């Protein structure tokens, strides 16, 4: 990598040098090793130093030996700007409290790379030793049990693709004035992974869940011991004790070594770093299901236990802060999802919702997964208002912004699934607007 960088710098002095300090030392060592390898190849092939065919096409990187193998691959250095959008409401006082949002404006397809998955944490990411960590299952069960991480790995596993959306996703799109930030910084508290784990039902049956148990208290081993109450019905339906994400063990930010996964429900309930499940008759009314994650209405009452994430979509390309360089063909691309199940239809408008065209879908056979939608579009160079509108298999339709706002108190910040509008200017600029 440094070698490529060096060549690029030689060709163009504006290319910045790599990171200073430690990484540079490593790079120099790597370079020396590579130099030796190149010399060896040249010698064995019997080539004179400096000999090369003149006039043949070939970029600089085609004329030097490439980088050595590494144990864990990283994105190209040219993709380094593709990073999560980090929100720290308490700043450096609590730098692990808040959320990171997936850069959906830079991503394609359905699966979110694990390192770019959105991440909502209340007291930072704990550094959990899987050999020490235990999962306790107790309460209204015949046999209270603990599970080591090693033993959980021995159960039959299932693999599913599910989205995870923070209930507070798109709360920034409720600001009085539309923010001019990338789509992910507003709507990226959503991601989609392939999850592998144990159906929660398996463990509940092993412990002997008692009939009077209607709820499960789930608790994390982070220093907030974040906890939520979950209806047993969901636990016995499609809830998963997840161990793997996109084929590898869970990332620490995603709950390593074990998390709860409640497909389609507000992300907060999919408790990370799971340490305890307690079967109870009623909900615990934890801080995160009373003072937070409850939905304030205009009359001052609040809806409690609104678990399912609504049907939703957002155009990721083109989107806020992007620029269309010239009139002509563009593919409109975006993501859609519903906590109720499958996405049946996504429509796209270029005139603020007056007329709609059906987009092509990828992944629509998967319930509670992201779906990718795409629509070819010829931009004439005139002003346009781009919108997408998703419909799920239950017939639920994504609401317009005004209708959504009318349901709630001005202080409501959760479950915003309203239609997003991007305004394309005659100059090709793309802006976030409210209509």
């Amino acid at each position, binding site marked *: 990598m440094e070698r490529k960088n060096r060549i690029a710098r030689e060709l163009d002095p504006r290319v910045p040098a790599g990171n200073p300090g430690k990484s540079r030392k490593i790079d120099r060592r790597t370079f020396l090793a590579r130099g030796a390898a190149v010399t060896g190849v040249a010698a064995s092939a019997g080539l004179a130093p400096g000999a090369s065919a003149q006039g043949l096409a070939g970029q600089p990187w085609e004329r030097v030996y490439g980088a050595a193998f590494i144990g864990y691959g990283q994105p190209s250095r040219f993709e380094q700007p593709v990073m999560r959008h980090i929100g720290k409401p*308490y*700043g450096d*006082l*609590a730098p692990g*409290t808040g959320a990171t949002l997936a850069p959906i404006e830079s991503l394609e397809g359905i699966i979110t790379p694990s390192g770019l998955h959105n991440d909502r944490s*209340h*007291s930072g990411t704990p550094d959990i030793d899987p050999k020490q960590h235990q999962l*306790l*299952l*107790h309460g209204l069960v015949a*046999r*209270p*049990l*603990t*599970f*080591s991480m090693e*033993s*959980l790995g*021995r*159960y039959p596993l299932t693999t599913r693709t599910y989205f995870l959306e923070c209930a507070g996703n798109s709360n920034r799109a409720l600001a009085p004035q539309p923010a001019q930030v990338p789509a992910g910084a507003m709507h990226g508290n959503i991601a989609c992974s392939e999850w592998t784990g144990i159906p929660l039902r398996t*463990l509940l049956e*092993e*412990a002997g869940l008692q009939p009077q148990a*209607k*709820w499960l*208290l789930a*608790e994390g081993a982070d*220093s*907030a*011991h974040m*906890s939520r109450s979950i*209806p047993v*019905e969901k636990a016995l339906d499609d809830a998963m004790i997840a161990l793997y994400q996109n084929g590898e063990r869970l990332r620490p930010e995603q709950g390593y070594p074990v998390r709860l996964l409640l497909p389609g429900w507000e992300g907060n309930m999919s408790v990370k770093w799971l*340490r*305890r499940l307690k079967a*109870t008759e*009623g*909900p*615990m*009314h*934890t*801080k995160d299901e*009373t*003072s937070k994650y*409850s939905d*304030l*209405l*205009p*009359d*001052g*009452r*609040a*809806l*409690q*236990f*609104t*678990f399912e994430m609504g049907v939703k979509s957002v155009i990721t390309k083109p989107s806020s802060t992007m620029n269309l360089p010239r009139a002509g063909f563009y593919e409109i691309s975006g993501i859609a999802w519903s906590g109720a199940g499958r996405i049946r239809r996504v429509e796209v408008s270029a005139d603020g919702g007056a007329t709609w065209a059906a987009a092509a879908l990828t992944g629509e056979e998967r319930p509670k997964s992201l779906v990718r939608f795409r629509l070819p579009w010829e931009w004439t160079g005139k002003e346009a208002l781009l919108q997408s509108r998703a419909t799920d298999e239950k017939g639920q339709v994504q609401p317009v912004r005004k209708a959504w706002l009318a349901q709630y*108190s*001005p*202080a409501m910040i959760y479950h915003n699934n309203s239609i997003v509008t991007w305004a394309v200017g005659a100059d090709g600029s793309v802006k976030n607007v409210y209509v």
Partner: protein
Amino acid sequence: MSTFERNAVVVLIAIAALAACASQPPAPGRPPAFGVAVGADEVARWDISIPPSGAGLPKGGGSARQGLKVYEEKCQSCHGAKGVGKPADALVGGIGSLASKTPQRTVGSYWPYATTLFDYVRRSMPITNPLSLSDNEVYAVSAYVLFLNGIIGENAQMNAQTLPQVKMPNRDGFVEMSGVK
């Protein structure tokens, strides 16, 4: 040995190997049950969740007068003097504001149960060192926050009996949507 004979020998060896090693498809075995039984004493060390009934509240107690000292030492740097907030959430005020255009959601104005205060302070606070407060300290600082909101008196003892009986101003402000019967 002819080619035919060599091949025949190879086939015979292969058949013998199959008979010895793989005479049956993999057996599914019994459903796994790898959970380890755990006793009530051990469960009690882990079970820190407190429902509105107060079940599981520990012994001990404290008053707002005692909680002031705990608050000033462990809470005030984030939650401000007398719970006014900044940089962390405000703990007092906003009672009666929920139906306005600028609702303030605090422990006093919004939280439906006082037991949640004990539960949350014990499990999560102070943010730099949770699980460090004694049960008496958690009762006392909970009492202080309730006192600041005008919900209990300065000398009222909060304990396993009294805390669940505290009626929070917004107790009836929630609409249950879970559908659990």
